C-alpha cells in the first residue's frame, strides 16, 4: 500500500468558531479505495474536519487537496464536482418531499432542468433506486420512511452524484444492530468498487469491524495519523481517544451484583395499557410491565416501535385508552405529568435539545423552574430568586456540569453538559422512579460513562429505572432485565446473560 494514490490531503488545516479553536492545524492524507475511520470524543474536531473537506465551512487556515486539486474557494458544489460528498449525521432529505423530489433537490445528480415533468423525474430516480437495490417507491413521502431507508437514500444521493470519496458522519448512530451490519456490508461493496470512504465513528467495536485505517483526534489535535488498523491495539486506541492515564471503566465487565432479595417492591407498573397510535409510532397494545426497586429495566427495540408512546404514557404526556398505570402504590392513570412528578417520577427525555431543556433560558432557570412553586415566600408571594440560584448551583456542581455562569443560556452548553444539567435537575434531590430515554445518545465516551455511573448509583440507592435505548451495548452493561418492543408490544423479556444475536433478532422479528 506504500504507493497508493492519495485522494484527500490536508496541510495545517485549522477550524475556529468565533474564539473557539475547534481544530488545531492538522495535516493528514487518505489513500484511495479504502475505508478510513476518524474517531475521537465529542468536540475532538472530527466533524469540523469533515465539514471543511465537504466544503460546508471555510477553514481558518491551511491548504487541502481533493484528488490532487487544491481547493481555494471551498464550496459544496466544488467538492461535489471533484467527487467528494458527505452523508450527514442528521439527514438532509426534507420530510414532506417525495423520494424523487428530495433526491433531485439534494443530489448533485440532476435529472431535471429548470422545469420538469413529475413522471420523468419519478422514473429516472426509480432507475437509480433499483440500481442501488433500495425497495421504496419514488412517490413515498420521506417522513414515512424508516431511518435505515432514509440513510440508504442519503448514500444513494451521494453516489448518484458520482461521488468517489464519501464521508459518513456517525452513520451508525441511529441504526439497529442489524442495520449496522447491512450498512457495513454495503460500505465494503462500495470500497471494492473503488470508492474511498471516510467514516466518523464513536464506537471502537464498529471501527474494528469495518475500517482499514484509523486516525484519532483528541481535543482538536491529531493524536494518531491514519494507521493500519491491524497495527494498533484496542487498548492503545482507547488510551489515545480518552487521553493517557485516564482510566475509565469500559462498557464490558460492568455487571456488579445487584442488591438482591431484600424486600423489593414494585414502584411502577403498567397493566394492560392501550393507547392510540401516534404520528410516528404504532399504538401500545396491552402492555404490562412492573418495575421493582433497585433495578434497571432495559427497553430495546428498533426505533419507532412504541418506545416513545411507552415513555409518554408513563410520564403522563399521553393518556391511556384503557389499562392502569401505578406509581409508588398510587393509581396515576388519570394524573398529569406534574402530578406524577410530585409523587416521585423523574424523566430524562429522548431529545435533550427539543424536550429536555429550554435552550434560550438560563441554566438556573432550567434547573429550578419545574418546582418554582417551592421557592415562594408565601402562597401567592414572589419567588426567592436567590434561593433558586443557589439550589441550581448546588445541583450543577453535584453533577459536575462545566459552565461559566448561571445566567448563560442552556443552548450554549455542549451536548454532554446539557445531559448533565438534565440529570442534575431530575436527580439532584434523589429519585425513586426514573425513566431514562436514550440518555447517552450522541454523547462521547467519557460523558456516556458518567451517565452510566449515575444510573448505577441510583440503582444502588434503591431506585427503579427504566432505560430506553437503541444502543444494545448500553442496555447490556446496565440492565437487570431487557424487554424488547416491537409493534407497540413488549414481545419478550430477557435475563442476563444477554445474547446480542437473540435480542437483535427479536427486535426485528426475525425467526431463526
Amino acid at each position, binding site marked *: 500500500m506504500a504507493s497508493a494514490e492519495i485522494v484527500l490531503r490536508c496541510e495545517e488545516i485549522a477550524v475556529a468558531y468565533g474564539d473557539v479553536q475547534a481544530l488545531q492545524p492538522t495535516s493528514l492524507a487518505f489513500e484511495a479505495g479504502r475505508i478510513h475511520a476518524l474517531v475521537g470524543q465529542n468536540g475532538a474536531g472530527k466533524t469540523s474536519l469533515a465539514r471543511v473537506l465537504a466544503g460546508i465551512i471555510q477553514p481558518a487556515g491551511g491548504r487541502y487537496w481533493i484528488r490532487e486539486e487544491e481547493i481555494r474557494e471551498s464550496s459544496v458544489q466544488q467538492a461535489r464536482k471533484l467527487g467528494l460528498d458527505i452523508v450527514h449525521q442528521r439527514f438532509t432529505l426534507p420530510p414532506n*418531499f417525495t423520494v424523487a423530489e428530495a433526491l433531485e433537490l439534494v443530489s448533485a445528480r440532476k435529472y431535471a432542468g429548470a422545469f420538469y415533468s413529475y413522471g420523468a423525474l419519478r422514473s429516472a430516480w426509480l432507475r437509480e433506486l433499483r440500481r442501488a437495490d433500495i425497495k421504496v417507491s419514488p412517490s413515498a413521502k420521506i417522513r414515512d420512511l424508516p431511518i435505515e431507508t432514509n440513510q440508504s437514500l442519503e448514500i444513494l444521493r451521494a453516489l448518484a452524484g458520482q461521488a468517489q470519496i464519501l464521508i459518513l458522519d456517525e452513520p451508525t448512530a441511529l441504526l439497529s444492530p442489524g442495520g449496522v451490519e447491512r450498512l457495513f456490508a454495503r460500505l465494503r461493496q462500495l470500497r471494492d468498487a473503488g470508492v474511498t470512504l471516510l467514516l466518523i465513528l464513536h464506537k471502537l467495536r464498529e471501527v474494528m469491524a469495518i475500517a482499514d485505517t484509523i486516525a484519532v483526534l483528541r481535543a482538536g489535535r491529531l493524536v494518531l495519523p491514519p494507521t493500519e488498523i491491524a497495527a494498533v491495539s484496542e487498548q492503545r486506541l482507547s488510551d489515545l481517544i480518552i487521553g493517557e492515564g485516564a482510566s475509565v471503566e469500559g462498557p464490558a465487565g460492568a455487571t456488579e451484583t445487584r442488591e438482591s432479595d431484600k424486600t423489593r417492591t414494585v414502584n411502577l407498573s403498567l397493566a394492560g395499557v392501550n393507547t392510540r*397510535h401516534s404520528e410516528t409510532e404504532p399504538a401500545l397494545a396491552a402492555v404490562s410491565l412492573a418495575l421493582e426497586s433497585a433495578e434497571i429495566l432495559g427497553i430495546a427495540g428498533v426505533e419507532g416501535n412504541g418506545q416513545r408512546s411507552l415513555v409518554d404514557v408513563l410520564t403522563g404526556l399521553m393518556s391511556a385508552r384503557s389499562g392502569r398505570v401505578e406509581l409508588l402504590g398510587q393509581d396515576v392513570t388519570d394524573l398529569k405529568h406534574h402530578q406524577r412528578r410530585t409523587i416521585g417520577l423523574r424523566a430524562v427525555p429522548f431529545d435533550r435539545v427539543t424536550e429536555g431543556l429550554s435552550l434560550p433560558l438560563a441554566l438556573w432557570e432550567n434547573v429550578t423552574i419545574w418546582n418554582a412553586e417551592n421557592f415562594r415566600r408565601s402562597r401567592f408571594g414572589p419567588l426567592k430568586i436567590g434561593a433558586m440560584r443557589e439550589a441550581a448551583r448546588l445541583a450543577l456542581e453535584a453533577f459536575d456540569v462545566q459552565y461559566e455562569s448561571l445566567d448563560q443560556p442552556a443552548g450554549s452548553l455542549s451536548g454532554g453538559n446539557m445531559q448533565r444539567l438534565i440529570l442534575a435537575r431530575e436527580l439532584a434531590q434523589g429519585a425513586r422512579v426514573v425513566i431514562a430515554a436514550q440518555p447517552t445518545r450522541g454523547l462521547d465516551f467519557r460523558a456516556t460513562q458518567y451517565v452510566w455511573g449515575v444510573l448505577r448509583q441510583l440503582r444502588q440507592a434503591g431506585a427503579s429505572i427504566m432505560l430506553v435505548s437503541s444502543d444494545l451495548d448500553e442496555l447490556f452493561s446496565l440492565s437487570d432485565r431487557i424487554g424488547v418492543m416491537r409493534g407497540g408490544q413488549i414481545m419478550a423479556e430477557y435475563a442476563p446473560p444477554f445474547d446480542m444475536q437473540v435480542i437483535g433478532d427479536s427486535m426485528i422479528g426475525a425467526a431463526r
Partner: protein
Amino acid sequence: MEQFVVTTIRLSAPLIFAGLGGLFSVRAGIFHIGIEGLMLAGAFATVAFGTATGSVWLGILGAIAVNLILSFVYWLLIDRFGADMIISGLGLTTLCVGGAAFLMNALFNKRGSMTSAVRLPQPVVGPQEGLLAFVSELSILAWLLPVFVFIVWLLLRRSRLGLQIAAVGEYPYAAEAAGVDISRTKLIAMLITGLCCALAGAELSVGGLAAFSENMTNGRGFIALAAILFGSLEPIRTTLAGLFFGLADAVGINSQIYAGESNIPRQFILMIPFIATMIFVTLRGAFAHRRHSGG
C-alpha cells in the same frame, strides 16, 4: 346568475393574485403579513403612475417597481438585519396604508379617494348572450388568471426553483446541504410575492372601478393569507380557496342589494364573507386535527 359569476370572479381575482404571490413567500418560510400593504401599494401606484403617464401599462409597471423595492426592503429587514417577520410585516402594511394616503394628498391633492385616469382593458363589455355573458366587463388581468395560475403551479410544483423554495421553507438544513443559497432563494420568493401583489392591487383599483380609495384593500391581503393556509400551501387549492372567499364576498354584496329595505342590518350582511371564512377555516382545522390524531 351571469352577473353573480362575474362579480365572484372580479372579487376573487385580487385574492388569487395576492394569494398565489404570497404562496411563494409562505412556502419559503416567510409568513408574509405585508401582503395587505403590498396590495394597497400596488393599487395606489397603478393609479398614480397610470394617471401621471396616461397609460395603464406604465401604471402597472410602476406598481411592480414600487413593490419590488418594498419587497427588497422587507427582505433586508428580516434576512439581513434579523427583524421579526411578523412585526416588520405589520410595519410594512402600516407604511403602505399611511404612505398611500399621504402621497395621494401630496401628489394629487385628494383626500379619501381619487379617480384613475386609466383603466384596464375589458375584452368583452356590454350585455351579452350565452357564455360571453359570464365574462362581460372582466378586466384583461382577470382573463389572464388561468394562465397565471398555471405559471405559478409550474414554478412551485414543477421547477427546480419550486423545490428549492419548498426546501428553504420546510427544512433549511436540507437546502444548505444541497448548496442552495437560502437568503437568495428567500429574496427571489419575496420579489415574486411583491410582483404578484402589484397585479392584485392593479386589478383591485383599475380592473373594474378605475379609482383608488384609502385602505381600499380592506383586509383582502389577510384573506389572501387565509386562502394560502386554507389551500394547504398548494397553488391549485389556494386558487380554489380564493374563489370561495370571492364567492362569499359576492353573496354578501348580492344579499345587500336584494335585502333592500328589509330589516337585516347592512353591517351584518357585510360580515357574511368574514364569518364564512372563519367557519370554513375552523372546520378545516377541526377536520385536519381529527385526521392528525388518527382514529
